[in-house]
């Protein structure tokens, strides 16, 4: 069991893969708290039994059950073998989460640690969402300690673009997270944190910076940037902030956060190729509009 603080949330986390813990969570270690906000444990076994409870809903191969006394279970059935691959047990505040994984992973192309990564990420995201924050799919950089998230669907090149900022600005830029940074509001101001859920790369830092802007990325031959209307900002954010289907309340909370974000910071669409000019295009716009200083 490790004690970590991620995005100012005190978490007790018990992972199966100790190397995974060491690689990703160690730098968030904090033995200084007694009471946790969130507890996540992961274990594996040879067979996951179907828990007893009333079915609340089913989406594809995922089934959601209400168990006794404010407890819930969400489990995933393998479409071929019909075995339960994973089951997540949680309370109504998402503060106690137990994840069980089948130790013989079916041929899904994912390793057990990848499931561990994914489901601990969901647990964190759910709790953060109830706390008024959100996990945004994107690469977070700190430019002179000012947070900018480059967001896009997977494979578009947000990590590449973040890497270009690092390449061209050197020590002025730190990549704080390469996949799932966490956003929280403090007295109405959005801040963004590095988290251990940084995708394929280990690029993440235990740091918090004020969120100055979100830039959605699209590939293009020529570089240009435009400020998004409220409508298009909302549409893009709805695509890149996960809104859990298994809980309407969480879905609504996410919309609250999207609302606050759109009202707090400017949001842009960057059409770009892989070049120094792409970085310059974004940087100039953010500088000219006073979004970032320096």
């Amino acid at each position, binding site marked *: 069991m490790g004690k970590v603080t991620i995005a100012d949330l005190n978490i007790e986390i018990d992972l199966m893969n100790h190397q995974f813990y060491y690689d990703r969570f160690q730098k968030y270690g904090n033995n200084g708290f007694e009471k946790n906000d969130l507890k996540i444990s992961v274990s594996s076994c040879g067979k996951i039994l179907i828990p007893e409870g009333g079915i609340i*809903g089913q*989406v*594809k191969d995922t089934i959601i059950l209400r168990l006794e006394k404010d407890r819930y279970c969400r489990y995933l059935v393998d479409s071929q073998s019909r075995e339960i691959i994973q089951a997540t047990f949680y309370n109504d505040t998402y503060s106690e989460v137990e994840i069980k994984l089948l130790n013989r992973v079916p041929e899904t192309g994912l390793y057990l640690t990848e499931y561990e990564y994914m489901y601990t990420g969901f647990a964190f995201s759910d709790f953060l969402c109830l706390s008024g924050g959100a996990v945004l799919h994107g690469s977070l950089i700190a430019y002179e300690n000012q947070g900018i998230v480059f967001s896009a669907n997977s494979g578009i090149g947000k990590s590449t673009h973040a890497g270009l900022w690092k390449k061209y600005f050197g020590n002025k830029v730190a990549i704080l997270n390469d996949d799932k940074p966490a956003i929280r509001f403090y007295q109405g101001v959005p801040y963004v944190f590095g988290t251990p859920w940084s995708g394929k790369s280990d690029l993440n830092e235990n740091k918090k910076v004020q969120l100055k802007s979100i830039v959605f990325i699209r590939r293009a031959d020529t570089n240009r940037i435009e400020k998004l209307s*409220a*409508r298009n900002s*909302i*549409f893009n954010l*709805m*695509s890149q902030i996960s*809104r*859990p*289907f*298994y*809980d*309407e309340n969480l*879905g*609504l909370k996410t*919309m609250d956060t*999207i*609302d606050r974000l*759109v*009202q707090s910071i400017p949001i842009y669409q960057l059409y770009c190729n892989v070049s120094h000019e792409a970085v310059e295009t974004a940087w100039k716009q953010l500088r000219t509009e006073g979004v970032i200083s320096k």
Partner: protein
Amino acid sequence: MKIVQGFIVRKIVDQSIVVPVGFKNVGFHTMISLNNSGAFLWQQLQTEKTEDDLLSAILEEYDIDETIALEDVRVFITKLKKAEALE
């Protein structure tokens, strides 16, 4: 027809937006924003309505030509059907 469960309208900044929450959220990749008359029709469709009901309601609410109103109602219904927001 009426709006199926699982969709809500949220006012975000100056936009009224139809948002799927819960199970309706899965596989929903479009966004419907509503203007004033759209928001009015959405409200009407919280309970069972026919096309004629909607036409009467919108004619009562807005000073609008009947032919244009009927066209608007039909376009709106088509949009909602496409989004599987109607039952």
